């Protein structure tokens, strides 16, 4: 009987969280400094739990059609916390690029996070390269883009694709073609359910390119 009561109580709670409180259940978090204090020796696990919260928040953004600004802020806060707890964590930067970068008003924050990632992951060419791409293509900050791209192509294992694209970005004459190629490359490294924003960006660029070529 006690077990039955427990199961009934859990089902009521589950039902309630599905209908009303779901957006708030996993999205609230402490400031990064407080999390760092509480995590103590388990900073890595704390960063992992922040990314689990990111998955939960993004799931709510995808499934509910209401004002998402507050949720995007929380998503950014969780990514920042995860970055501060574990600055070497690759998944943080991949999600920053995949989710934050192509969201309006999120690009600047994404470039900041990726620049921090470039400082922490000194062996990785992708962080400064992606930060440079975003700074050039979205923020139109070519000075910063130039610094970041130059940093990227100096790093070990930077592939010819990165070097080629970087040189194209740094030339004033490049068009939307290079951006589309880069976005396809980025999309291939993300799971299908996280490709929506990148797909939308590719579609916009392709449409713009088509209009330019049509007489």
């Amino acid at each position, binding site marked *: 009987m006690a077990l039955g009561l427990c199961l009934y109580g859990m089902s009521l709670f589950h039902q309630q969280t599905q209908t009303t409180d779901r957006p708030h259940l996993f999205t609230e978090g402490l400031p990064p400094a407080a999390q760092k204090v509480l995590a103590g020796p*388990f*900073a890595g696990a704390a960063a992992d739990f922040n990314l689990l919260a990111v998955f939960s928040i993004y799931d709510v953004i995808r499934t509910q059609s209401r004002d998402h600004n507050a949720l995007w802020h929380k998503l950014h806060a969780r990514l920042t916390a995860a970055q501060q707890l574990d600055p070497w964590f690759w*998944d943080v930067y991949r999600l920053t690029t995949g989710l934050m970068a192509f969201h309006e008003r999120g690009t600047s924050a994404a470039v900041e996070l990726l620049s921090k990632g470039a400082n922490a992951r000194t062996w990785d060419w992708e962080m400064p390269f992606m930060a440079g791409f975003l700074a050039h293509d979205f923020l139109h900050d070519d000075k910063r883009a130039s610094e970041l791209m130059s940093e990227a192509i100096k790093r070990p294992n930077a592939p010819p694709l990165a070097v080629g694209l970087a040189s194209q970005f740094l030339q004033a004459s490049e068009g939307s073609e290079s951006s589309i190629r880069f976005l396809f490359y980025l999309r291939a490294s993300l799971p299908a359910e996280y490709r929506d924003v990148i797909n939308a960006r590719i579609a916009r660029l392709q449409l713009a390119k088509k209009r330019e070529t049509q007489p």
Partner: protein
Amino acid sequence: MNKALALAAFSLREILSAPAYRALIASTLFIAAGAMAISNLFLLENIKVQLDLLWLGMSLLTTFYVLVIAGSLLAQDFTQGIASLFLPHMSRSTYLRARVFGIIAGLLLLLAVMTLVATATLAWGLNYTPTAQAHGVSWWAPLMLSGMTLLQSLTILSIVIFTCSWASGLVEMMLFSGVFTGLAFLLPSVMQTMTSTEVMAEVPDWTAALIHAVDYLFPDMTGARIALAIAHGLPLPPAELTWFLIAQMGYIMLLAAAGFLLFSRRDL
């Protein structure tokens, strides 16, 4: 010496027969299963997540062992007169040393099981992870994390010995051991935050000097960056590793020596 060995073996048997200890041994499998399941949710660094969770699991497991099983064993000995049964046959320091050796043997057994399970989990993870995403992660990672856990657990054990040697009741011993352990985990991170340039710029000079003095007294014993480096397969930072080992060994020796000294003079 034989009496000490016999008491150490008796202590180990006592620990092995405790249901809580068996539950801890069984929970190593749950920790491994949890680490495997959760790490699969991530995109790229699944192995890193797995090692993070194994490190969290093994630390919590051994902390629980030392605080609850070892702590209650010593506390009951001192408060319920069990120690008095042994003391006519050996000196106080021999008695306490034998009890501590028994506790450490139980800890080593628990860590050995956890290391085996963690290594098997890592092997499974490495088998399913592309090489680029597990670059640098070594098969020795669980053993290195176990070594760090052992040092942490011995520090907590020395806190327990120190507390039990002067506290009067069972509740007092368990409570103070828990509080001191919590402080040892939290204080380094608090001090790290307080000594940041942003905070130092805002506080008066005398407060800054006080904060720095406390920071020197309580160095970072947590090894958070070392554990992160192991999980990411990065080279271990030599200065931090050396400082971590020296700080842990120093605290273990100081607290254990103080505990043995106080125990030799306390009323039983």
